[in-house]
């Protein structure tokens, strides 16, 4: 078998040009395949990692997302005093926040995109320990000072450190930049809850996020709040809340991307077939010789299948290599659930790596089967006579 394997591989390198064309073709297909999956996974990963398993978020029943939810001050009080809310220094670890969308202007092309401004309290940092101030300082309480998430600071006009951003009839000073490690908070502006309420003349909250004393008792917490006649709220695990927002977008990218990739991979499969048929027909004499030496039909079939499999795997490697560089590319799109801009990265996962090689291998095997079958059926005498 070792001999046959080297025979296969040497054949590939002896017909360098056609091998190159075929492998490049399959490489392009695998590149697109991997890129599409990385995009969908990046979107999912950003949102799923945003929510903590220890926190619960409470919004108005039926409102689906914070951006359209409305809670009254007295309702917020009732949620915060629930016995399952964790305490720190005798105070509940809970943030009552107001979330408002403002129309921002992109630095790159001046396009308008919606940015979330989150009016919050200092507890927000206890609830989300992954959010860290990386530049500047914390805003002074009771002022029009805001923090910008790393992506917002980079992508939106007026949102960088030391700049001023104008909305709701005020100029807001960006005094600090925070980084939440690629979570969706990086796409938000954070300010003081009372200031945001006043500026937008909305004396309400959008959501209340709490740390649970015991996350395994979430169902109990949920049931108590949702059956409370004073409240018309729904409680969700924070992780679940954010994960849900990624579903529609990620599914859309996968459906469109994979449908097109699978369709045009057929083009590359035809290319592999052309190459393999040519490989078989130019080696008729050699195949006859192998058969005359006693190699079985099955062995000949295997030789050519291995050759086309190698083509496919090479294509897989060639496509995956440039795709993996996409990990350094940050992109943004609108999160249609919240209607706000969300920055994320192409993200590679082990599943995508395995999937890409598998996809390349399948293209190679499918493209190589018919030619290999023809090779295996070669008549010894007839093929040797050709010489």
């Amino acid at each position, binding site marked *: 078998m070792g001999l046959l394997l080297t025979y296969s591989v040497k054949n590939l390198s002896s017909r360098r040009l056609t091998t190159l064309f075929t492998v490049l073709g399959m490489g392009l297909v695998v590149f697109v395949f991997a*890129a599409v999956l990385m995009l969908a996974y990046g979107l999912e990963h950003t949102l799923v990692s945003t929510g903590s398993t220890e926190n619960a978020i409470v919004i108005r029943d*039926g409102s689906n997302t914070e951006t359209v939810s409305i809670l009254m001050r007295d309702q917020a009080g009732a949620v915060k005093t629930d016995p399952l809310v964790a305490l720190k220094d005798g105070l509940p670890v809970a943030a009552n926040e107001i979330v408002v969308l403002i129309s921002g202007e992109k630095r790159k092309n001046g396009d308008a995109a919606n940015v979330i401004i989150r009016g919050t309290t200092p507890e927000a940092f206890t609830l989300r320990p992954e959010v860290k101030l990386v530049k500047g300082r914390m805003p002074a309480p009771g002022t029009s000072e805001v923090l910008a998430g790393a992506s917002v600071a980079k992508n939106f006009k007026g949102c960088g450190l030391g700049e001023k951003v104008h909305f709701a009839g005020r100029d807001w000073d960006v005094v600090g930049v925070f980084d939440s490690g690629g979570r969706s908070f990086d796409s938000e502006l954070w300010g003081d809850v009372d200031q945001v309420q006043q500026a937008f003349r909305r004396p309400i909250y959008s959501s209340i996020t709490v740390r649970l004393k015991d996350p395994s008792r979430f169902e109990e917490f949920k049931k108590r709040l949702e059956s409370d006649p004073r409240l018309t709220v729904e409680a969700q695990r924070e992780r679940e809340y954010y994960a849900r927002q990624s579903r529609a977008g990620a599914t859309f990218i996968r459906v469109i991307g994979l449908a097109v990739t699978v369709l045009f991979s057929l083009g590359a499969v035809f290319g592999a077939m052309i190459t393999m048929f040519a490989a078989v027909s130019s080696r008729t004499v050699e195949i006859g010789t192998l058969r005359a030496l006693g190699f079985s039909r099955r062995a000949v079939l295997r030789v050519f299948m291995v050759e086309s499999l190698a083509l496919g795997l090479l294509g897989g490697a060639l496509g995956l290599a440039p795709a993996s560089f996409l990990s350094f590319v940050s992109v943004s799109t609108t999160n249609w659930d919240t209607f706000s801009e969300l920055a994320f990265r192409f993200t590679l996962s082990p599943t995508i790596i395995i999937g890409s090689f598998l996809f390349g291998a399948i293209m190679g095997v499918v493209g190589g089967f018919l030619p290999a079958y023809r090779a295996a059926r070669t008549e010894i005498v007839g093929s040797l006579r050709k010489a």
Partner: protein
Amino acid sequence: MSVFRLLMKNAFRHRLRAVLTVGGVGVAILAFGLLRTVIAAWYAGVESAAPDRLISRNKISITFPLPLAQETQIERLTGVTGVTHGTWFGGIYKDPKNFFAQIALAGPESFKFYPEIVVDPAAVEAFGKEPQAAIVGSALATRFGWKVGDVVPLKGAIYPGDWSFVIRGIYTGGKETTDVGTFYFPWNAIEQRLEKEWPDRAGHVGWWIIKIDDPAKAASISQAVDAAFENSSDETITETEAAFQQSFVAMSGTIILSLKVISFLIIGVILLVAANTMAMTARERVSEYAVLKTLGFGGGRIFFLIAGESILLALLGGAVGLLLLWPTVHGVGAMLRQYFPAFPTDPVTFAMGAVAALVVGIAAAIFPYWRAMSLPIARGLRRVD
């Protein structure tokens, strides 16, 4: 023998390889066309926008409403021939997955602003009388199997509570790009409820739809509208309907850009398949080209022979792909109704597919031609494989 016959004979000398090449190019052109159609579907809203309609929204963001009192001020501006309003409802029909646009319109007069919405006048009349009357797009009706008279329950998200509407009419699109996936109902339905339950939220609309007498004055009228509310507590941003729609397209900019890049990579795959075939062909025919050169064929004629063959194969493939595109788009369009209310087949897509095939045909011939020409005649004749 005419040159064209020679081309045909050459192209199909290796029948299996020719068929595979045509098949490979065809499938890839189909994928290219499909992707281009999806990209075009994104712009359907921009394409269907009327030049004499302006949209005015709250400057903070589209999620902030505008007070009803602005209407009379806008009406008074010169160049404005009519004002109506729309409001995004954002309710959920049974499951969040069943997303579709629900827009509350001022009243029956709003339909006069949209001549491309074709609907039974009786339905429009009912729209004016019953706050629960809904007029829905034909694609939406097909998607959920709705008929006139059906009751549609919606769970409010922006406007809390349970709502229900009765379908009084199903509209069709006057143009291929008309959005036929929207659910319209009278603004009064929201207003009556807010007056009772949330008095501070009553008396507001989502955006103004402004009809103007002369599209050439769109910019100055937009400025006049915004100036009228400058420094008030509800500042506006006014732009043409096309620009308004474009801002939604821009929100998906990254996705659209990715699709565009992929569509060009597909052309790369087609090129590689065709180039592979042509490289093999040229390799086999080295001695023939040498004979032709001996007979006095110039470079131009040899290029014509090689390029002719590869263009022939590529165009055949292109034709196969584009013929299949039409039924495929219809199938896929039905699948993607949820995302795209209009899914038009764009003649530009067909033209692009044909041009792509042609370019691939020519490009695939360059390398084999160079090879044929660079090999000295004597060496070409010596090779007999």
